[in-house]
Each structure stands twice: as C-alpha cells, then as structure tokens.
C-alpha cells in the first residue's frame, strides 16, 4: 500500500482502486482541538478539488477537498461520535472517507512522504 500527500495536507492510502483519505498530523496540529467533522454521503460522486468534508476546531472551520475524482464508498462514522480522534490519530483511526478511483492518472504529481515532509518544513 502506497501513501501519498496533497499540498492541502491530506493523505491518501492507495489500496488497489480504492483510496482512503485523511488529514495529516501536521494539519491537525495546525487546526487544534477538532470538535466536529462532517463527511460526504456514501455513494456521492466527488470531483477532484471539490469540497468533500468539513473539519472544525474550536477556532475555525476548514474544508477538506477531494484529492481525486471518484465515488465515496465508505466513511468513518467514528468521527461523528469522537471528533478528537483527528487530533490523537490523524494518520490512522481518524481516516475520513474512501473513494473508488475513477482515473489513476490523477495520482500523478501527489507527494510522497519525503516530499510532504519538505513541504511542511
């Protein structure tokens, strides 16, 4: 499984033609205490760069963009009950949604872990 990163601080774990999307640990550290997460509905067709989810800290609301085009095939219901998971385990348990990839070429140009690390340095 490969993990790639966007400039907008999302991670994408790619497993075949399904990608799991979350926000990075850097993003959660910048946002602060997360108090609410709104996720897309399963079955929704997302276009790349479209606002797909909302994550809210005490301070502010942020959109999470669809990093690639595709259909939402699963969402992480645990985030509704425990939004603070985003702070405690952004890279793991706090995944946001899974998308069935429509066009794999959209993955080209995303960053690998080293490039993302440089991006946020």
């Amino acid at each position, binding site marked *: 499984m490969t993990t790639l990163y966007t400039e*907008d601080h999302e991670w994408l774990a790619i497993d075949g033609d399904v990608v799991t999307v979350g926000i990075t640990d850097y993003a959660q550290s*910048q*946002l602060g205490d997360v*108090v*609410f997460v709104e996720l897309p509905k399963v079955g929704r067709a997302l276009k790349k760069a479209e606002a797909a989810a*909302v994550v809210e800290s*005490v301070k*502010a609301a942020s959109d999470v963009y669809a990093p690639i085009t595709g259909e939402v095939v699963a969402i992480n219901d645990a985030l509704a009950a425990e939004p603070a998971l985003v702070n405690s385990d952004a890279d793991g348990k706090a995944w946001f949604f899974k998308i069935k990839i429509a066009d794999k070429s959209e993955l080209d140009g995303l960053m690998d872990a080293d490039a993302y690390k440089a991006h946020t340095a």
Partner: protein
Amino acid sequence: MSAVDALATDKSSILKQTPLHALHVARGGKMVPFAGYDMPVQYATGVLKEHLHTRAAAGLFDVSHMGQMTLRAKSGKLEDAALALEKLVPMDILALAPGRQRYAQFTNEVGGILDDLMVANFGDHLFLVVNAACKDEDEAHLRAHLSDICVIETLPNRALIALQGPKAADVLATLCPEAPAMKFMDAGPHSVNGIACFVSRSGYTGEDGYEISIPNDQAEALTSALLDHPDVLPIGLGARDSLRLEAGLCLYGHDIDTTTTPIEGGLNWSIQKSRRTGGARAGGFLGSDKILAQLDGGAPRKRIGLLPEGRAPVREGVLLFADTTSTESIGSVTSGGFGPSLGAPIAMGYLPNAQAADGTTVFAELRGQRMPMKVSPMPFVPHSYKR
C-alpha cells in the same frame, strides 16, 4: 484543507508587540495578527484545555493591546469629568463611587455603538479601558468632544493582564493580600508583588477574576511570577473568545457595532435609571433620542443566544431563516463556535422581536442545508462573579 496555511503564522505585515511578546514566544505561544498586534492565539496546551483550565483553576491573559487612558477635569473636580463623559455614554458616571468600575458604551449620533469600555472612578480622575481596534478612534472622539473640559491621557506605558478563574483570588492573594477582599467591579491602585498596579475585579470570561494594569517595564516580571503558580496557565485569544461567548459577552465589531444600538444589543441593564426617560439626567448623550425611544418602546430586533440542535458549529456571518423553505433571511449569527464547557456548539446573533423569544426555533443555512437552532437565554455558562 482550506484553513491550515492561513492558521500557520503570518508575519507578512508589520505588527506591534505588547511588553509580554517575548514571554509568549518563550512559552510556545502561537502568534497571530490581532488588531494590529502579534498576539498568542493559543499555547501548546491548546484552546480546549486552556478554556477548561480557566473555568477549573486560573488562566492568565495578555490584554495589553487594549487601550488604557485617563480622563481628568481641568477644574480638578471629578464630577466635571464624569458629567463630560456622560455626554458620550448612556451610563451614570456621576454616581460611580470612588474605587468602582462600570461597563459602558460610546454611542454615536444615530444610537449606534462606537466601542464598549470599562470606566473606573480612581478618586481624582476616571480610568478607561477600551478595545484595541478602536483605541485611536476613541481617543480622537474623546478629544473632539471633551477637550474643553478634560485632559485626556493615553497610557501606552502600561501593560494589561487578566487573571481569571475560580483560583484567581487565591493566586493573586499571594502577591496582593488585599485582592480577595475586593468585590466584583471594585477597581483602584494596588501594590502587586511590590509593583504599583491598577487592579479591578472583573474580566471577560464570566469567571471571577482580575484585570491588572502594570508599568511596561515590570509587566514581564509580574506575569512570570503569576505564571509560576501551579494553578495558572497562560491562555491565548482562542480560549478568550470561547470563554466570553459561553458567558454571553459581546465582542465589539462582531456582536455590537455602529449599526447596533445598546438596546438591540441587549445591553439595557447597563443603562442606569438616571439616564433613562424620567431620570435625573435623562438622555443628553449621543444618540439618546433613538436609544431612549427604543428603551421605552422596544427595538425592532434583539441580540439573542442560539443553541444549534446538531453538533455542527454555526459561525459568524451565517444567515438565519424562519423556516426551512423561506428565501428571505431574518437575521444572522454574529459570533458562534464550540463551547468547550458545554461540550456543544453555541452562537449569538440578531433576530426580529417576533422570533426572539426563548425556545423559538430558527434555521441557520449551513453549507446549503437549513439547520435548526433554538433561541436560548444567555449566559450559556452561569457567571461566577464575587458581588
């Protein structure tokens, strides 16, 4: 993610610093621009824990960006300064006893609010604390209207900190033994750790606490001495905002401004009888015709508290509707977010009188959906002032 890079520190513009700037940076404050100053929005503790710590123990806030000034009558008589100031505020300043402080608003000719402030009687002069973003305009306003009667002096040589929370009195007592004997809104000069300060028992969190004006060159030493106490944590502007929102307190420029009157803003309580219709010095302040007419006959709209029924925070600027289908909004949210002590989203905003009664359901339009919210009494978290 839209906000992440915006939340990262922006040093692009030239920002002023308070005398406590180095202390904030040394303690890990995340610095952001606020009212022209480079201020800590939070520390490593984080907004949520800073908020809860203030309600449970004591939080220390740097509010040195706010404007401090004095008003002295050229005649030397305090009452002349008090009567002069009464031309600009709908409050009874003449009856404000020595050593006491009062909440006030500067109004304009059409009844709007230019700023809100604290006024204290320091015996031979008045001491004012105004908002950072308004302090230059406030000074000009005072000079334009009161210069013939008063000498107006700004105090840029003084820092201002707030110590807030249930442990504030015990903490301050270690450096200022007379502090616990002060009552809510008592104000005056006190020695704190041997430093000549102005102390008031007041604040902006709904908690018991103090605001302490300190000479700039001693601000860091005194603040560090208070932070050395195990019950005290430094608190940033993020928690300051969530604390005041839970306490139902207005943020100038958001919940009140030049387009809202004190009556629309629900600040009737702050206008004493003597300045109301039939009072000894009724009216006679800028915008008094409109403000007293609204006080007597009602205002068309009102600032109200709102509790979203869902979990989503509803923030400033969100429009409010009477139902799920109407196309015309009836009001808007002026402050909103998450209340850490309530563990739920809270907001305040303006609604027409017909929809302003407690328990009324209105709808916020959020990301294309109408979300129900209930008009709710404020404060959301009870005040715990030591009256």
